[in-house]
């Protein structure tokens, strides 16, 4: 066991340690706990950034690779953690988004914070583990950990609705986990190894019907976890029931982590040619496009703000999955850029909706009347992020959607291009519905609403941090929309990783 590249373990262990401290922090002061949470997430961000900065030359020439091994090497009893350019990109954007969400939740969460932060950091540790792991068994463990730790967060405010949503989420998540487990077991019995790289080397040796079974079970598990069309009912309920920072975590970060697992499994481990050979890639492509369209159409009839945002997430995730299935360089560029863009936009939208909805009686569209007059600047930020999601020119949503559209046109897949365009137009309609409602003048203010506002007025004078996080997200969306070239280098190296899985396989097996 060598101590080289201990940072990889630190990335997973640090949030776990903070979670343990948080679990026993009921006697801490409010301030101490917040400082601990923000510094923890900050150190994590610094670690990932330092990995990028210190290895900048290696990243630039796509040679970047770190590995950490626990256990006896050259036996099956070994746990591998590896980081290549693809994992670095995902680790970077996920950590940055989680850092901002932590800052937001220090002000947003007002009771049972110790429990909240303990679960939150456990989810964060599992996310890092999922991104860094290099063998299937640990991957299964971390995926299940994510599902189990997010469930109490969904039912954090104990009402009938949240309990229902959390229960349904857990039922679907665990069923997906069982399918994943079957697939892993089949791989182990056929090849006698669980290392992703070793599986990748000898996946050809398995008989074709067995390959088909393995791939179908993996696809089933990931389709359930991603909320693709036939099994998407749990997603809007779960994502709209929880507190706003958790909605941002689930919709903005976690869905992308599942997309990362999808890429890891179907490009690095199982070569994509197998999917094409077995005629599954076109099937998944069409399914994802239908899912995208259905998500956008369902968002039209959603009468709750957060439910609408969750349905819109289904639409975007379907689009990203579809464009990745094209398996061209342009498609990867569009897909990875849209993953980054959607992470920023959806986290920003959920956080600002959480801020706006604190003054209203319910999440229903009728109660949003006049909300734009009450919180002017925050609502303008909300509109800008909405425009980004629709795809307005100077913002990052436009750039990423443009590249996705170009990828579809280049592959001559016109249904895909149609779905991207139609999704934008439908999105314009459903966002306008809410925006126009928000600027409606309230004629007869009901007494309960006014009383509620007065009681909250003193509270909102001190809540600058939440507003600042929302403004920061808005500025990031504008800034990266103008300077999207920043992402060009990391995304291109990540694409190199997807197109040449041989490098990852050789380095993992050789080290």
């Amino acid at each position: 066991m060598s101590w080289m590249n201990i940072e990889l373990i630190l990335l997973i262990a640090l949030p776990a340690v903070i979670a343990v401290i948080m679990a026993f922090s009921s006697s801490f002061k409010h301030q101490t706990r917040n400082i601990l949470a923000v510094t923890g997430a900050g150190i994590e961000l610094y670690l990932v950034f330092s990995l990028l900065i210190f290895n900048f030359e290696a990243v630039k020439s796509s040679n970047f690779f770190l590995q950490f091994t626990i256990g006896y090497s050259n036996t099956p009893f070994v746990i591998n953690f590896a980081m290549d350019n693809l994992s670095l990109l995902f680790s970077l954007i996920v950590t940055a988004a989680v850092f901002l969400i932590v800052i937001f939740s220090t002000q947003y969460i007002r009771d049972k914070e110790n429990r909240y932060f303990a679960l939150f950091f456990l989810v964060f540790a599992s996310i890092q583990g999922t991104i860094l792991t290099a063998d299937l068994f640990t991957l299964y463990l971390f995926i299940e950990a994510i599902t189990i730790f997010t469930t109490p967060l969904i039912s954090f405010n104990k009402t009938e609705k949240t309990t229902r949503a959390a229960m349904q989420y857990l039922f679907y998540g665990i069923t997906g986990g069982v399918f994943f487990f079957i697939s892993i077991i089949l791989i182990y019995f056929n090849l006698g190894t669980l290392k992703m790289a070793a599986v990748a080397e000898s996946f050809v040796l398995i008989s074709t019907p067995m390959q088909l079974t393995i791939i179908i079970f993996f696809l089933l598990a990931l389709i359930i976890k991603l909320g693709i069309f036939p099994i998407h009912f749990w997603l809007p309920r779960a994502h709209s029931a929880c507190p706003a920072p958790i909605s941002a975590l689930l919709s903005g970060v976690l869905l992308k982590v599942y997309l990362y697992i999808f890429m890891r499994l179907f490009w690095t481990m199982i070569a994509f040619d197998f999917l094409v050979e077995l005629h599954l890639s076109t099937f998944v492509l069409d399914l994802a496009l239908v899912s995208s369209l259905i998500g956008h159409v369902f968002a039209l009839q959603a009468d709750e703000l957060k439910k609408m945002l969750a349905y819109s997430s289904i639409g975007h995730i379907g689009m990203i999955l579809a464009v990745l299935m094209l398996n061209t360089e342009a498609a990867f560029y569009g897909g990875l850029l849209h993953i980054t863009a959607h992470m920023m936009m959806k986290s920003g939208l959920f956080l600002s909706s959480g801020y706006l909805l604190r003054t209203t009686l319910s999440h229903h569209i009728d109660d949003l009347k006049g909300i734009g007059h009450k919180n002017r600047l925050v609502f303008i930020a909300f509109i800008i992020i909405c425009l980004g999601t629709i795809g307005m020119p100077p913002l990052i949503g436009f750039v990423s959607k443009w590249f996705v559209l170009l990828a579809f046109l280049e592959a001559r897949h016109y249904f895909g291009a149609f779905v991207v365009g139609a999704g934008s137009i439908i999105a314009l309609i459903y966002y306008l519905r809410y925006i126009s409602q928000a600027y409606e003048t309230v004629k007869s203010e009901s007494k309960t609403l006014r009383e509620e506002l007065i009681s909250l007025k003193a509270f909102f004078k001190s809540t600058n941090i939440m507003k600042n996080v929302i403004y920061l997200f808005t500025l990031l969306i504008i800034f990266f929309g103008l300077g999207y070239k920043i992402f060009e280098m990391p995304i291109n190296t990540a694409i190199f990783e997807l197109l040449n899985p041989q490098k990852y396989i050789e380095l993992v097996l050789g080290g």
Partner: protein
Amino acid sequence: MFNNFIFIILFMLGFYALVMKTNLIKNVIGLNIMEAAVFFWVISFSDIGGEVSIHKLGEEVTKFNDPVPQALTLTGIIIGASTAALLLTLIIELNKFSGTIDREKIEGLND
């Protein structure tokens, strides 16, 4: 062949209980039967009638059962137990709010 047969029957039984039954606790039982089916299957495959896979000092173990499936199964059992506990807790909470554990009668679960 026999263990494949048992696996498919048990798995389908669990899946039936998970999907078709309206009682939520029966759904949890169905989920557990599904998991148990997978675990039985794994163990039945990995058992080749060898020795326990602990490396004894000074003794050469020639034929031993593969420990990796056993480790996988143990982890799976732990995950299954914790999810069952969490699900039952949520069902108890839901029962406090709505007074029933029937999936059909709880509003908003079937639309």
